[in-house]
Each structure stands twice: as C-alpha cells, then as structure tokens.
C-alpha cells in the first residue's frame, strides 16, 4: 500500500499533505477546549511523520513548515499572531520545527536505503537467474554441439579405420544432436517472445479433435511405447484459439509425459467443454432464472501414470529454468514455463497436481465457441 501511495504524483502529494495538516489542525482547533496546545504539537508532529512515511521529501518539509506555523498562529499564546509570548514556548516552537524537519529527512533517508536494498536484492536475483540460465544453456547447447563436432572429426580423420556400423552410428548421432539443438533454439525463441511480451494470440476457430490428433501424430515416435488414451467430448464446439500456440502447449506436455514416465505407462488426454452459466436477476419475478450469457471454457486434462512430481516442487515446475532435482538431462527447463506462458496468453490457467499413480495437468481456457452442426447438408 505504501508503495502505491508513494507513486502518487508530486503535485497531488503537496495537496494531500497540506490538506491533511489543515484538517488535523482544524480538528484540534475545535477540540482546543479539551486538549492542551502542547498535545496539539504532538498530534501535528505525528501527522507529519505519517506523511513522511509515504511521500517525498519536499511535500513533507512543506507539511512540517506549515504545521509549525499553524501551531504557532492558532495554538500558542498570544493566539492569532506569530508572536510567541513566553521563552518556554519559543523554545518549544523551535524544537517542534527542528523535530518535524529531522523526522521528514530521516524517514526519507530510510526509504532511500530500503529502495537501494530492494534494487540490490533484485539484481542478485537476476544474476542468479542468469547464472542458472548460463549453466543450463551451456550444458544443453554444448552437449549436442560436442556430439556433432566430435562425430564429424571422427568421420573426417579416421574414415578408413571406422567400421561401416560405427560410421552409421556417428552419422545418426549427428542427426539426433542437430534436432535436439533445434528444439532448444525453438524453446529459447518462444521464451524470448514471451519475455518481450510479443505474444499476441492470433485467434481463429480451432477443431480440438484436429489439434489433439495433430500433436499426437507428430509425437508418434516418442509415444510409440506408451499407452495413449484420447477422450474428446462428443460434439465439442469449435473454439477461438491460437492453433500454433495451443499446439506447442500440448506438444510440450505430451513430450514431457513421454520422457518422464516409464515405457508402457498410461497417458490420458481428455478434452471437454465447461460452461459457466451467468445468471441475471429477473426483476419481474426476482428469480435468478434468466440466463444472461454462458461463458465457455475449454478444459484439457493430461494425466500420466508416471512417478508424479515431488510435492515440494509442484509449485516450481512452471518457473523459468527450473529443473526437478532428480531430472534427467535433455531439457532447458523452459518447456513448462512456455506452456504456462502460452496458456496465460489466452487468459487461461494451468494447474499441476499429483494423483494416485501419476501426475495431472489441468488446462482451462476461456474461449468463444461455435456450434455449427446444422450445416451438414449445405
């Protein structure tokens, strides 16, 4: 809240400070029959201190000066003059002035130090993230590059000594490494698109059946040892989504499932519509019966019969460059954060939970729908 208040522009800060002092002073003035003028000084000092907590130094100093003058004019005898009768009051007035100023300057300095500390902390966090990125990247990019460089060296230098079998294996290694490198670059490109806020979903009508099978067919090799079950609700409407982004979401999730579950493990893909009826109060009958509109969500569940996720890491898996402590090599830790980013670009949500014998990802995306089954005979 303080940070929000301190973002108010300076002109408004002046107005609010002056207004507050005048208001508090007026209150004290009305109550001056019950409270002594020395107590009024403390109340005004307190007000200045509160202002100093949230506002800039200049409005605080103005508030301090103004409150000192008001206190002198309205509360110190003789009233309604800036003249101060007794030496004691003169000393009090001077002290008031100095304390109010010190108050303002000190809180301001504390805030400056806090800001600096916050910036340093953020910088440290960035450096840490950067280091994680570098470690992860240099490993994930350099492994395939090393494979390619090593294999080509072998092929070029010792061609005569290599058996046909080894030659073939080296060439296959180059091919696999290049594809892996390409996948990493794709991920990095997606991530940088997300980071730059460049992702604007290009929404168009999508046939979810087509989308799901398209991804599954592309992953045919990866999934050939798994038991895949696809359940798509009958008469699912068309949804307005970005086909390319959704393809990437499903691809990354299924690819992960294929890597992190043992062979022959079950993987389920379930797609269904979730309609939220929004009712409107019918003023005539006072019934909530009239449906104002329906908000449709596309729900996609991807469940696997794998080892699940360590409980304490469930929250972190969507973080950038986060990799499970026991994870195998082969990823940059970007796959799931890209999934989350693309789902959120659609204003959707993704939740991961452990279920008996596996893990479950639940995606919910609000989207415009279209049912046009009545076109069959056109």
């Amino acid at each position, binding site marked *: 809240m303080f940070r929000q208040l301190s973002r108010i522009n300076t002109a408004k800060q002046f107005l609010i400070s002056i207004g507050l002092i005048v208001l508090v002073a007026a209150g004290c003035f009305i109550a001056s029959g019950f409270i002594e003028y020395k107590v009024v000084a403390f109340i005004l000092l307190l007000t200045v201190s509160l202002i100093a907590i949230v506002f800039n130094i200049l409005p605080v100093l103005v508030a301090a000066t103004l409150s000192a003058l008001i206190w002198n004019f309205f509360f110190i005898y003789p009233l309604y003059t800036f003249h101060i009768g007794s030496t004691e009051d003169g000393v009090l007035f001077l002290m008031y002035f100095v304390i109010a100023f010190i108050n303002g300057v000190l809180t301001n300095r504390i805030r400056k130090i806090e800001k600096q500390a916050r910036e340093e902390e953020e910088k440290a966090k960035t450096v840490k993230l950067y280091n994680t990125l570098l470690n992860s990247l240099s490993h994930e990019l350099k492994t395939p590059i090393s494979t390619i460089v090593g294999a080509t060296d072998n092929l070029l230098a010792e061609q005569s000594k290599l058996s046909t079998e080894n030659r073939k294996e080296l060439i296959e290694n180059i091919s696999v490494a290049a594809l892996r490198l390409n996948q990493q670059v794709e991920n990095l490109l997606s991530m940088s698109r997300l980071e730059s806020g460049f992702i604007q979903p290009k929404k168009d009508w999508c046939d979810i059946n087509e989308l799901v099978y398209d991804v599954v067919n592309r992953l045919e090799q990866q999934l050939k040892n798994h038991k895949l079950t696809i359940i798509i609700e009958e008469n699912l409407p068309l949804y307005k989504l*970005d086909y390319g982004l959704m393809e990437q979401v499903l691809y990354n999730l299924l690819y992960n499932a294929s890597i992190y579950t043992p062979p022959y493990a079950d993987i389920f893909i379930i797609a269904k519509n979730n309609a939220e009826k929004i009712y409107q109060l019918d003023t005539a009958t006072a019934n909530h019966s009239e449906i104002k509109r329906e908000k449709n969500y596309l729900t996609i569940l991807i469940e696997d019969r794998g080892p699940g996720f360590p409980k304490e890491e469930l929250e972190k898996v969507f973080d950038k460059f986060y990799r499970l402590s026991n994870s195998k090599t082969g990823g940059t830790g970007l796959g799931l954060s890209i999934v989350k980013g693309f789902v959120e670009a659609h204003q959707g949500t993704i939740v991961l939970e452990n279920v008996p014998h596996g893990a479950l990802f639940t995606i919910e995306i609000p989207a415009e729908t279209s049912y*046009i089954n009545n076109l069959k005979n056109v």
Partner: protein
Amino acid sequence: MYNATILVIDDEVQIRRLLEITLESNQFNVASADSAKDGLRIAASHPPDLIILDLGLPDENGHSVLKKLREWYTNPILILSAQSNEEDIISALDNGANDYLVKPFRTGELLARIRSALRSNATEDNNPIIDCGELQINLAARTVKKNNELIKLTATEYKLLSLFAQQEGKVLTHQYLLREVWGPGYINQSQYLRVFIAQLRKKIEADPNRPAYIITESGVGYRFIAKE
C-alpha cells in the same frame, strides 16, 4: 524424362552447397545465385523449371523478389524461410509461392515437395479423372470413388475436395479455400472450413484422426497429398 533445372537463390553458401549436392545427386540440374539481383538475372536469362527462394536475402526482401518473379515467371517457386512465422508464410503463398519449407528442413521432404510441384505443373492435361490411391475423383462426372465404391458428398464437400485434388501437393491457405468454396464474403468464417474439413476427412480418410490425404498446415492452411 529430361532433367529439370532448379535455380537456388540463397545467400548462405552452406545452404547453397547442401542444396546443390542434394539436387545434383537426385538428377536435377542446379543453378545458384547468392543475391536477389543475381537470382532475378539468372531466372530471366535461363528460366528454370523451379526456383528455390530464400526469404532472407541481404540485398532485397524475399517477398518483393517473389512478386517481381511472379510478374512473368509461371513455373513453381518454393520458399525457404528461417522462421516459422505464419503471417510470413501466408503472405508468401498469397504472392504466388507454391510451397514453403522452414529451416531446418529434411532433404527427403524437400525432394518430395519439389517433385510434387514439378508434377502438378506438368499435368496440365485435361484428364478429368484424378487418381490418388484408394480415392478416385472424376471431375467430369462429379463423382468420387473410394476403393471403387461411390461415396456421397454434399455439393460443398465436393467443391472442397476437387479444389484440393486439382492442386495436389500445394498448400492452400484458409482464406483461399474460404474464398473459392464459399465466396469472398466468407474469408473470415473459418468455422465453416473446420467443420467441412472434419466431415470430408470422415468420408475419404481411412482414419480421420490420422489423415493421409488432407494434411493440416498449422496456422496456414491445408495440403492435399495424393497417395501413390
């Protein structure tokens, strides 16, 4: 059959060499250019049977090179692109490119696309019967047979299928299909296309969920593949 000549316009020497080696070892004649200027000059002086054009040339935007070529060049043009930007691809197809490949591409895929483009360019005879494996489309009689049995298509389904079959191997964009089948007023009504593609697949594909004829080109359009 004579050896077709292919002009490669790409500024990267490694890609050029890769294409030259791949194409020459598959009995194509290859000419190559490393800039838009050279490419346009060679295309004009020795018109090739097909042009492979990289969109990211240093001296001129690939789209503008494509437009200049299309002012007079009618043989197939295949686009190479470093990024799979859907808008870029759609605009290239709208400007007359026959097909596109995103780097890195597999050479097998490249050769298949080249052969398909050259084939459909060559078959401008007026044979009304298009044979694609189990599927036989008779444009004169407006009938479609699957495994020698007539299948019933609605008028719109037939229009869609015949459009695909006449441009076998070519990527047809969503907008193009909507304009040709439903009319210019429908180019943003892609829900029609989705529904009819799904219906058509149910009727012609052996497994509609693993289509072999009508292939989805994510975010761009569809491609019809005639199984041999």
